[in-house]
């Protein structure tokens, strides 16, 4: 079954190349052609040397299968892109872990992948993705230095964990080695990124919270929650342990075995003392825990905080003195992608960086890879609120028009400069990942 599928895919891509080549030769407009059996036959026949075939009729729409977490997969973006270019986007939304699994195990099942930089340490060695040609990306040199060089305004930011700059470039297009210095071949073209911190219920805590240590503070016994995605959960725990002075780390995103042991031991102790109310795995679970008041302090994601707030429940994405745990995601292309689908994929990436999509996602609290273009699609008061960290001079609305913030509010954590400048570490895959997962299971079982 799977054998058959892969052969089919190969035949189709070959056909696509054939159609593409012959179409260009015949100087016809086949830009929006698709990959049906009919075009395959036509392509094959044309390739066999029959001239004058009516290619114009082969104009079928291209559909790009877009694999990713739901974060960037908005129906509005697909609609707008189709209006602008005629290319259809078909979303395949999965969880972060499943996106990784899919890219490695079924690399023919998508045309463009939107995944997080930290998964690259697994993805690139598996050889299913291909380096993107920076020369084909119009705004490649406009991509924020936060991601490409790990600096903001010339100032270095925290690079513990899998910082994007460490895995941004390949030594060659088909290489499975990361290049420490910029090259023409990029692993992912960044889409969105953000800095995560603790979410709190200020109405129930009734005192300022300014350190990660409060996650494990016995004062919140039975009212704290942790993220049960081992690689991210352990870093939040490490931030808390380091802040409380219980542990010291060389690199929280790449712990040694003794560091993992120490962290898990401390977590087990906290669990036995009844610190945690629950662990959560998906976005909605964290929203429910917070909105229902079961939990008053937990590691959280920015859109989840927004969701709790739109339910009318006070919730703050609390900036903390130790800094943020950051993440970034971007577009990668499968090695098998060829012909017009490949061109369409580049077209989509360029369109994505062109501002409309960036502005759309910035209104949800994320940051766009190219800020200049996104700015052109935002109102000045929106830019001031989201990026400059100034008080809102008009009502701030979500992309769907729902009211987010009233006049006068300031974004949690302040400006782009302040938030990004305070990054302490990045989501990571550790060298000792297998051991870490094993120990994490021990913690859950304790």
């Amino acid at each position: 079954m799977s054998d058959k599928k892969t052969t089919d895919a190969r035949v189709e891509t070959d056909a696509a190349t054939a159609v593409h080549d012959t179409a260009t030769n015949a100087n016809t407009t086949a830009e929006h052609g698709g990959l049906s059996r009919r075009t395959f036959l036509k392509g094959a026949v044309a390739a066999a040397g029959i001239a004058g075939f009516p290619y114009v009729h082969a104009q079928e729409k291209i559909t790009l299968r877009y694999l990713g977490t739901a974060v960037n997969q908005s129906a509005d973006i697909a609609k707008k892109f189709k209006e602008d270019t005629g290319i259809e986007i078909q979303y395949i939304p999965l969880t972060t872990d499943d996106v990784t699994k899919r890219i490695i195990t079924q690399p023919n099942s998508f045309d463009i992948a939107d995944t997080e930089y930290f998964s690259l340490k697994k993805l690139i060695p598996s050889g299913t993705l291909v380096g993107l040609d920076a020369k084909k990306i119009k705004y490649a040199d406009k991509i924020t230095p936060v991601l490409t060089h790990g600096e903001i305004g010339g100032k270095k930011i925290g690079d513990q964990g899998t910082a994007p700059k460490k895995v941004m470039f390949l030594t060659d297009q088909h290489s499975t080695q990361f290049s420490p210095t910029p090259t023409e071949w990029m692993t992912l073209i960044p889409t969105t990124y953000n800095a995560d911190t603790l979410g709190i219920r200020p109405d129930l805590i009734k005192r300022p919270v300014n350190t990660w240590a409060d996650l494990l503070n016995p004062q919140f016994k039975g009212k704290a929650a942790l993220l049960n995605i081992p690689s991210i959960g352990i870093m939040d725990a490490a931030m808390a342990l380091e802040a409380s002075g219980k542990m010291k780390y060389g690199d929280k995103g790449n712990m040694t075995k003794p560091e993992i042991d120490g962290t898990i031991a401390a977590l087990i102790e906290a669990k036995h003392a009844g610190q945690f109310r629950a662990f959560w795995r998906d976005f909605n679970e964290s929203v429910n825990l917070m909105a229902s008041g079961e939990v008053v302090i937990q590691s959280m994601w920015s859109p989840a905080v927004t969701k709790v707030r739109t339910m009318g429940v006070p919730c703050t994405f609390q900036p903390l003195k130790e800094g943020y745990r950051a993440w970034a995601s971007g577009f990668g292309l499968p090695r098998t992608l060829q012909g017009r689908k490949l061109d369409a994929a580049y077209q989509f990436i360029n369109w994505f960086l062109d501002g409309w999509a960036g502005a759309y996602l910035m209104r949800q609290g994320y940051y766009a890879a190219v800020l200049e273009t996104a700015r052109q699609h935002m109102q000045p008061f929106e830019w001031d609120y989201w990026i400059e960290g100034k008080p809102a001079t008009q009502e701030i609305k979500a992309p769907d028009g729902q009211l987010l913030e009233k006049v006068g509010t300031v974004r949690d954590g302040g400006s782009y400069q302040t938030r990004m400048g305070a990054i302490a570490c990045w989501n990571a895959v550790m060298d000792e990942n297998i051991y870490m997962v094993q120990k994490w299971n021990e913690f859950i079982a304790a």
Partner: protein
Amino acid sequence: MATLPNPIAAGPAARERRKARRSAWWQAAPLTLAFLLFFIVPLVMTLVVSFWNFNEYEIIPAFTFKNYQAIFDGCGSLTNVCVTLKTYWSTLRFCVIVWAVTLVLGFSIAWFLAFHVRTVRMQTLLFMVCTIPFWTSNVIRMISWMPLLGRNGLVNQALVGAHLVDRPLDWLLYSDFAVVLAFVHLFTFFMIVPIFNAMMRIDRSLIEAARDAGANGWQILWRVVLPLSKTGVIIGSIFVVTIVMGDFLTVGVMGGQQIASVGKIIQVQTSYLQFPAAAANAMVLLAIVLMMIWALTRLVDIRKEL
């Protein structure tokens, strides 16, 4: 099944028998093939993969006991019990509690349906009522407990309102209690069906005879009905035991992801592409569940009883 070939019969009769046997093979073939393709082959593949090596992004065909060693790592120590034993202990404990509760509940409900409800129409109606929990998805049924049992949920509000407790009870949700409650809610039906089925096949004259012979209600239950519905009890037990042993969703949601289960370990491993480790865990789980089922079927010869 076990009819011996008759040595006297010969000629056309033997041909007839051969034909019958051939057609029996044909009749069994589709199910056999389906079993082979969708059950035996994946199982053998799982077994094979459980001996393979792996790293972050690929599984490597090799022969290693590493995955099994990791499972039983440190299990020799008595003072510091290893994760595997702890996890199985927790899962087995749920299994026993849930089995006991669903058995008592399921048996009582089936008893009521079979012997106290007079009309077939009423029986059908009440039986349908028992299936209502299955009209919605498993996850929704579990999540619907939350507004009821949460810290600010209905039960706590009622208890605090009635001044029975000073502070909301925390152990109602995200606790062993919540997990057992959800299991019982979800799986009692699997106990009711086979027991009810077995009870309906009990000849009513046997009960009359017992009563005529002077047995009281308790004696009828213990000496007549229970032995005759043993098959139903065992089948129901197999359903409940296997489902609880393999579950990770209910334990996860109701336990606030804080309680370990064997299924959860396997799920975490597959999501981190550690397929060989997950396969090894699956094989161990399978062996243990098979042993439990084997023990249960020792108690009753299901094939004979059916």
